[in-house]
């Protein structure tokens, strides 16, 4: 059952160039079909996990720790849901968007890579084997380098190249770390490693392994100051790729980091054996402030959103670093929430580019008259990013704040609030330009095509929906925390 979640995108990605040879439209339809089936399987898995608690699959029937194990529990369930959902939306969105941005002959290649990317990130999420995790990290990374290079501008090649270099360094670090762990424990299964590591926490090899893996993942995560690959990669990639990278790419690395910190190592190791968490709190705070300030300085809308992502990643790592139940819950919630709102915002930025060819915020004067629905969605998703109550952004920030207070880290409060204020300013700048400045053109209305605005509408409505009806995310994240800390 869980296997299909990974296998279907993989097969679809193999089939797309094949069908694309006959007619390029087939590539789209078969990807759509793949995404729908994957999503259905995820829903099915969700139902099973909710009733049975845990769902696993052993590759070739070999029992772990010898064979590769795929596990779905409370923690990765929420990620599976959001990723497979965004997978579906990105495919729908990319129909129109990629027609405009990507050369015709490369379209089937584009869909092939898109599916391969999702194979990678869904794989990262479901696998319970740490080497397998590395394999999927590489699959996702390699396909994303190529996807970025497909972008419409010349800079996309350079952005892709930068990401390639840094991403490879990151992945190599992860690999080295895994190598050391294997040397120390002789095992690759996460649950198995966890129990085997405890007696040898003070060995230098384990510490080195920990350092390499976390550093590597932080690079993939684009945690400030390891973020330099991210803004260009997001901004110059094709719009749908920018959205999927922002919504799922870094989130999955964050998930991997949580797994490594809490399911491979333990809180005891992260906080007591080495003072990692304490240092990590400060790095995260710097990331939050730096990301927000840098976003303020951007003229390009997509770059602004990219820098804002860097700040938001800081929130996620902050929750991870504070390592108490509430803050971790806030962190997992923020992964979920930030996926939704960044997906919406990048979709919108792509839509504006699609319709008007506008990239800079200053050129968006009076655009709200021409694209009223698009900008209304932007306002909602933007307010959600700020963390206004009744949107999803509020809930995760609230949990992070409560987590900080219960840890007695009072200095976290002003940082989060200042960053909320900064995000209000950079979102407001766009709103003000779009709504309150007079436009030069006199065209009355030019909304995005339905295929693009419908996914935007869906995610934006979800931004509000999960801000009001919070049972589902709270339930899922609570279960996740129980798994991470409970035992």
């Amino acid at each position: 059952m869980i296997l299909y979640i990974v296998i279907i995108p993989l097969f679809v990605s193999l089939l797309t160039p094949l069908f694309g040879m006959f007619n390029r439209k087939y590539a789209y339809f078969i990807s759509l079909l793949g995404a729908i089936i994957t999503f259905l399987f995820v829903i099915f898995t969700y139902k099973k996990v909710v009733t049975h608690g845990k769902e696993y699959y052993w590759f070739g029937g070999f029992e772990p720790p010898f064979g590769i194990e795929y596990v779905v529990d409370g923690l990765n369930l929420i990620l599976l849901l959001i990723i497979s959902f965004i997978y579906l939306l990105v495919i729908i969105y990319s129909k129109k968007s990629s027609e405009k941005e990507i050369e015709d002959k490369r379209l089937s290649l584009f869909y092939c890579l898109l599916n391969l990317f999702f194979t990678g990130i869904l794989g990262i999420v479901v696998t319970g084997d740490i080497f397998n995790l590395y394999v999927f990290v590489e699959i996702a990374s390699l396909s994303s380098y190529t996807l970025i290079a497909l972008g419409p501008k010349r800079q996309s090649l350079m952005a892709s190249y930068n990401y390639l270099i840094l991403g490879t360094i990151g992945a190599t670090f992860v690999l080295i770390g895994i190598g050391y762990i294997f040397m120390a424990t002789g095992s690759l299964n996460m649950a198995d490693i966890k129990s085997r590591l405890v007696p040898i926490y003070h060995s230098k090899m384990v510490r080195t392994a920990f350092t390499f893996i976390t550093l590597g993942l932080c690079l993939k995560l684009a945690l400030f100051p390891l973020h330099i690959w991210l803004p260009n990669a997001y901004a110059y990639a094709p719009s749908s790729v920018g959205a999927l990278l922002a919504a799922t790419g870094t989130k999955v690395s964050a998930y991997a980091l949580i797994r490594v910190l809490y399911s491979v190592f333990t809180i005891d190791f992260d906080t007591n054996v080495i003072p990692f968490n304490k240092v990590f709190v400060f790095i995260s705070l710097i990331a939050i402030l730096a990301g927000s300030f840098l976003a303020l300085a951007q003229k390009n809308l997509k770059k602004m959103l990219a820098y804002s992502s860097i700040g938001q990643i800081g929130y996620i790592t902050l929750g991870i670093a504070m390592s108490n139940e509430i803050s971790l819950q806030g962190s997992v919630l923020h992964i979920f929430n930030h996926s939704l709102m960044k997906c919406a915002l990048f979709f919108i930025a792509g839509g504006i580019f699609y319709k008007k060819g506008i990239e800079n915020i200053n050129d968006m004067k009076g655009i709200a008259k021409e694209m009223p629905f698009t900008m209304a969605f932007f306002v909602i998703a933007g307010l959600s990013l700020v963390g206004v109550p009744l949107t999803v952004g509020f809930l995760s920030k609230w949990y992070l704040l409560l987590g900080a207070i219960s840890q007695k880290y009072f200095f976290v409060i002003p940082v989060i609030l200042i960053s909320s204020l900064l995000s209000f300013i950079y979102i407001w700048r766009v709103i003000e330009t779009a709504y309150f400045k007079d436009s030069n053109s006199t065209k009355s209305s030019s909304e995005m095509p339905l295929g693009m605005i419908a996914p935007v509408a869906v995610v934006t409505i979800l931004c509000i929906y999960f801000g009001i009806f919070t049972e589902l995310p709270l339930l899922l994240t609570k279960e996740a925390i129980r798994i991470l800390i409970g035992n």
Partner: protein
Amino acid sequence: MENYISILPAMVSFIALISVPFMILFRDYNYVKEGISLFSALLMFTLVLLLGREYLSERILYIDIIKITPTITISFRTDNASIIFAGISSFLWFITTFYSIGYLKGLNDKKETSFYVFFALTIFATTALAFSANLITTFVFYELITLFTYPLVIHKGTEDSKKAGRKYLAYLIGTSIMFFLTAIILTHFITGTTFFNSEGVFKKNVDNNITLLLLLLFIFGVAKTAVMPVHSWLPNAMVAPTPVSALLHAVAVVKAGVFVMYRILNYIFTSQVLLAIKGHYILIVLSSVTIIFGSLIALRQNNLKLRLAYSTISQLSYIILGLSLLNEYATKAALSHLIIHAFSKITLFFCAGAIYVKSHITEISDLEGIGKKMPITMLAFTFGSLSMIGVPGFGGFISKFLLMKGIAHSGNYFLFPILGISTLLNAFYFMPIVFSAFFKEYKFNSKDPHYVNKKYSLLMEIPLLITGLVTLVLFFAFGGILSFIGG
């Protein structure tokens, strides 16, 4: 008092929200928007009266609209203060709409629809704030008020107004996110609740220093009270059209701030806690300083609207002073001043607007002899001024009298001279205007742009005469209102 679950308190505010799509739908029809606005104002006022009757028959209506988490909810609840605040807001919305028709037509304004829409939205947020049952709900609508009034502040669309608008946002959003929200989070963390409770939420075991810190955060977080040093957004917002200044910046917005302060002092802290930490002295000092300096600065203004704005700052601090004396009489004084100041100040602003529309005069030095050309307007202005000064026979006297009683009761006798000086200053900055308007020669001839034209004058004169007369009526009919406040 008995608690009943009822949707009514939420419905009151939603009337204004529901009217918005209709206004947008009928934007091209003359007088239809105005009709919708008037109708919803009337409906809202009727509902508020209905709630008042329920309250008098000892029924408190209560509803949780949205439960974000078990302790964070969007809830509404009725009590005497909320009914009074919602009552004057809706009643004055009705009057102001009449006035706005004359104002906007007189100035030949093209952005009527946006004006009425954002006006209705602000009233929605204001009445919702009035019925808010906890700090979270209050915070949401407090922020919404700021956001909804922003388009009204920059209504003119000039560079000046945009600059003012930005400052307006920076002040109000900045302080509320940095201080108000922090205070709410800390309160929630310490007490586990944000619900308003007449017994307060702080238990005995909370450290006095922390409570004091929270009080300070609340005082500076609720910048809408315009207590010095967080007052300068208010004069700044005077670039807005006069009906906006009249209803929003003399009634809805600033009163929202004062109202939130009332809630915080009486339902979060309670007088026992405040007396224990001596926190009320902070408020007494701040409000006394604001009363005196507000009046002194008002004296130096030559622009009529600016003078009124500084007068508002000073008068609001009467209410804050009343709240901070922590006795029954002073609280009554505060609530009655909330009503009386609303009617008096709106009259004065209406007059300023009428003068501007008819003669384009904005400076006080140009007002000589205008009383002969616009007798009704200046008569109402005189009523408003006398009420502001607190002359017996006008509403203002009652609240000042009650305040004196409150001061005597609290034993802070040094406040008497402050009140006396302030009354004198009020007379100094209002009476010369009245005097020169009636007793000096009118200096403009018919060719001058400042010469009075009579277009649409009745639509403005009737509302301002009504509110002017109300200040007179309030003196004689205040017993009923007072018993409502006391009950």
